[in-house]
C-alpha cells in the first residue's frame, strides 16, 4: 500500500538526528569551514554516542532520512562522522559473510573508525574503467601500485583510525572493465601513504586526500568478489557491473545529503521571510503570486521532487528490488535541486545570503559537491539515459 507515514521508531531516530544537528553541528559549522584541516575532536566523540540510535550510516529509509538531518546540520561535519562510509558500503554489498565480519566489526567498537573508497585517479574521474592502479597476485598476496585522488575520509580511515579503504585496481589491463576489482586495504598496511590533503570549495570538514600505493601488499582474500577475469569475452562485464552495484546503494544516500543541505537553505529563507512578515500564499493562482512567492514555491517543489525520488530509491533497496535506474535518477535530481535551491537562496537573501555572517553562502558551496562526487550529474544522466533507452555504452556514449 502506498504510504508516506514513518513508523514511530523512524520518527524518533530522525528527530534525534535533527536535535543532534541543531545542538552539535550548527554551532561549529562556521568554525570548521574556516579552519579547514583542523580535527573536530569533540564533535567526533559526540558522534560516537549516536551509534545506539542506529548509527550514522546505513542503507534504509530511516538511515537516509537521518543523513538528510545531519546534512541539514552540516554536510562537511556529517562526512567527518566516524563510520564505515562508502568503503563499508562496498564491503557490505559485495563481500562474503567472512569479509563483512572481518572488516566491518571494527565499526561497532568504542574507538572512532572511518572507511573510505578510492576510485578516482589523477587522469580519470567519471571514466572509471581507465584506471591505472594495478593489483598483481604474488603467492597468497596482492601487490597494489598506483595513485588515488579525492579519497573522502581517506586520512581519517588510514591515519587517524584503524579503518580501511576499498581500492579499485585492475588485475588485467587488457581485460578492460572486466579486469577491475575492489580490494580492501586496512590502515597500517605498509606501502600505503596519505599524501596531499585537498583545500576545497566546500564540505571543508570532510578530509579529501591522495593515497599512494607503493608495492602495498594485502592478503589474497582481501579482494571483494571473484578474482576471476573473464577474458574470453571482453564485453562481459557482469563482475564489474555487480561491483558497481555498490553505487546503487550509495547514490540515494548521496541524494539524501544534497537534500539535507537544500532544506537547510530553504528553511532559512522561509524563516527569514516569516520574520519580515512575508507569507507564502500556497493555493493562490500563479498569475497572482509575487515573484518571490514563485521562487520559494519553485524551490520547495524542487526539494520535494528530489526527496520523493530519493525515498523511492532507498525504499526499493530496502525491498531488495533492483534500483540502478531509480538511484541514478535520485542522484541527478538531488544534485541539481540542491545546487539550484542554495544558489537561489543566496540570491533571494541578498547581503544576508552573500555574507559569511550567515551559513547560506556556505550551504551553496557545500551543495555543489553533490552534483559532482559519486558520479557527476552528467554521468548519472548518462546512466539514466542508457537505461530508459535500453542502450549499451556503445550505443550511447
Amino acid at each position: 500500500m502506498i504510504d508516506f507515514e514513518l513508523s514511530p521508531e523512524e520518527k524518533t531516530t530522525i528527530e534525534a538526528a535533527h536535535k543532534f544537528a541543531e545542538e552539535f553541528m550548527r554551532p561549529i559549522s562556521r568554525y570548521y569551514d574556516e579552519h579547514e584541516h583542523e580535527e573536530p575532536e569533540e564533535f567526533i566523540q559526540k558522534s560516537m554516542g549516536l551509534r545506539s540510535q542506529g548509527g550514522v550510516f546505513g542503507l534504509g529509509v530511516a538511515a537516509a532520512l537521518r543523513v538528510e538531518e545531519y546534512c541539514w546540520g552540516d554536510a562537511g561535519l556529517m562526512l567527518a562522522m566516524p563510520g564505515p562510509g562508502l568503503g563499508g558500503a562496498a564491503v557490505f554489498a559485495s563481500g562474503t559473510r567472512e569479509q563483512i565480519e572481518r572488516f566491518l566489526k571494527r565499526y561497532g567498537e568504542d574507538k572512532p573508525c572511518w572507511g573510505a573508497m578510492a576510485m578516482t585517479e589523477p587522469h580519470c574521474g567519471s571514466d572509471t574503467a581507465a584506471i591505472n592502479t594495478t593489483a598483481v597476485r604474488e603467492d597468497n598476496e596482492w601487490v597494489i601500485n598506483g595513485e588515488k585522488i579525492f579519497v573522502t575520509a581517506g586520512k581519517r580511515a588510514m591515519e587517524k583510525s584503524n579503518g580501511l579503504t576499498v581500492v579499485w585496481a585492475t588485475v588485467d589491463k587488457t581485460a578492460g572493465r572486466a579486469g577491475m576489482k575492489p580490494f580492501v586495504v586496512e590502515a597500517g598496511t605498509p606501502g600505503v601513504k596519505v599524501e596531499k590533503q585537498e583545500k576545497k570549495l566546500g564540505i571543508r570538514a570532510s578530509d579529501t586526500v591522495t593515497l599512494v600505493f607503493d608495492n602495498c601488499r594485502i592478503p589474497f582474500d582481501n579482494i571483494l568478489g571473484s578474482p576471476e577475469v573473464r577474458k574470453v569475452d571482453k564485453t562481459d562485464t557482469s563482475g564489474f557491473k555487480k561491483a558497481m552495484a555498490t553505487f546503487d546503494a550509495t547514490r540515494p544516500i548521496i541524494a539524501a545529503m544534497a537534500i539535507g543541505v537544500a532544506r537547510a537553505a530553504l528553511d532559512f529563507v522561509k524563516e527569514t521571510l516569516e520574520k519580515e512578515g512575508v507569507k507564502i500564499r500556497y493555493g493562490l493562482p500563479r498569475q497572482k503570486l509575487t515573484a518571490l512567492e514563485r521562487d520559494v514555491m519553485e524551490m520547495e517543489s524542487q526539494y520535494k521532487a528530489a526527496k520523493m525520488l530519493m525515498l523511492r530509491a532507498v525504499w526499493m533497496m530496502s525491498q531488495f528490488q533492483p534500483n540502478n535506474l531509480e538511484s541514478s535518477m535520485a542522484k541527478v535530481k538531488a544534485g541539481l535541486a540542491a545546487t539550484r535551491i542554495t544558489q537561489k537562496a543566496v540570491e533571494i537573501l541578498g547581503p544576508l545570503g552573500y555574507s559569511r555572517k550567515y551559513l547560506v553562502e556556505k550551504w551553496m558551496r557545500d551543495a555543489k559537491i553533490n552534483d559532482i562526487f559519486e558520479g557527476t550529474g552528467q554521468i548519472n544522466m548518462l546512466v539514466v539515459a542508457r537505461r530508459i533507452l535500453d542502450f549499451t555504452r556503445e550505443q550511447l556514449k
Partner: protein
Amino acid sequence: MISFSPTEEQQMIVNMVKQFATDEMRKVYRECDENGEIPQKVIETAWGLGLVSSCIPESYGGAGGERSVLTGVLIAEELAWGDLSMAMHVLCPSLFVLPILEMGTEQQKKKYLPLFCGAKFTAATAALVEPKFNFDPNALSTTASKNGDSYVLNGEKCFVPLAAESEAILVYAAEDGQTQGFIVDKGTPGLEIKEREKNMGIKALATYELALKDCRVPRENRLGGDKGCDFNRLLNCSRVALAAMAVGVAKASYEYARDYAKTRVAFGEPIASRQAIAFMLAETAIEIDATRLMVWEAAWMLDKKMEATREASLVKFYADDMVMTATDRGVQILGGHGYVREHPVELWFRNGRGFATFDGMAMV
C-alpha cells in the same frame, strides 16, 4: 511505513484502465481531436468500468467501494495517458458526485447519487473557472446571495465540461466572499448555457461558457446545506487529479518521442545515440517520476484527511511546468515531424499547455 507499492486491488484497477486506454482511447484519439467528438461506445465502455460510481455507497445504489483519492490519481494518470479529452469526459460526473458524496446533505445524497448508479453514462458537471485572466477560485466574481428560502446566482463561467448534457451543475460562487457550491438543475431559469467553446487543446471535450442571470435555486441546493462545504479540500482533490493527468499526458509524449528517437536515423545512427536528445529524454523521465510521486504523497494526505493545500498546490504548480516542458520536448525531438498532425506529439503539446489554466476541471 514508507511504501511506494500500490495495493493488489489498485494494481488491478490500473491494469484495467490501462487496457481500456490502449484498446479504446488510443485507437480514436486523433480522430476525436480532429472532429471534436468522442464515440458514445468509448464513453459507455468507460462508464461500465465503474470509475465514477464505484465509490457511491450501496444505500444510494452504488457499488459501495472505498473512496480513495490515491486510487483516483492512479486512474486519472492512466486515462490521461490514453487521451486527456476523453479522460476529462469520462470522469466529468465526478465533479458533481464527489463533492456531494463527501460534503452533501443526506437529502442531496438521496436525490442525486442514485442518478449515477445506472448502466448508462449520466453527465453532471461543475462550474468553477471564470472567463478572465486573473481568475482566483477563492475570490470568485460569480456571486450567490441569500434571498428568503433561496439563493440567487449571478455571474459568468467558462471551461464547464459537458454543461449542455448535464443533469445538474455544481456552480461555485462567492457567498459573502467565501466560495460555496450550489446545485443548479438542468433547465433552471436564469441558467444560460452558451455555445460550445473552441480551445487550443482538449478539442474532443465539449466545454461551455455559462451565464447566470438572477438564477434562483432553493436553499437546500447549497452544497452541504447550512454547514456549507470545505471548498479548499475540493480544490485540493482537483489539484491532485489534474497533476496526475499532467503526468499521464507527459508520459504519453515522452514514450512516443523516446521510441521515435531510437528508430530515427541521422548521420548514420539513431538520434537517441546523441546526448543532446538522450539527455532531454532522461530528464523528462526523471521529472515525470518525481511529479508522480509528489502527486501520490498529496493524494495520500487527502485520504488521511490531512490539510494538504501546500502539497497539492506545489505539485499542481510543478506538474503544470513539467508537462509543458515534457510535451515541448516531445515536439522538439520529432522536429518537423513533430509539427505535423500525422504524429500525436503536437496534440499532447496543445493539451499540455492547458494545465496551467485548468482548475477544478477534474476531481478524484
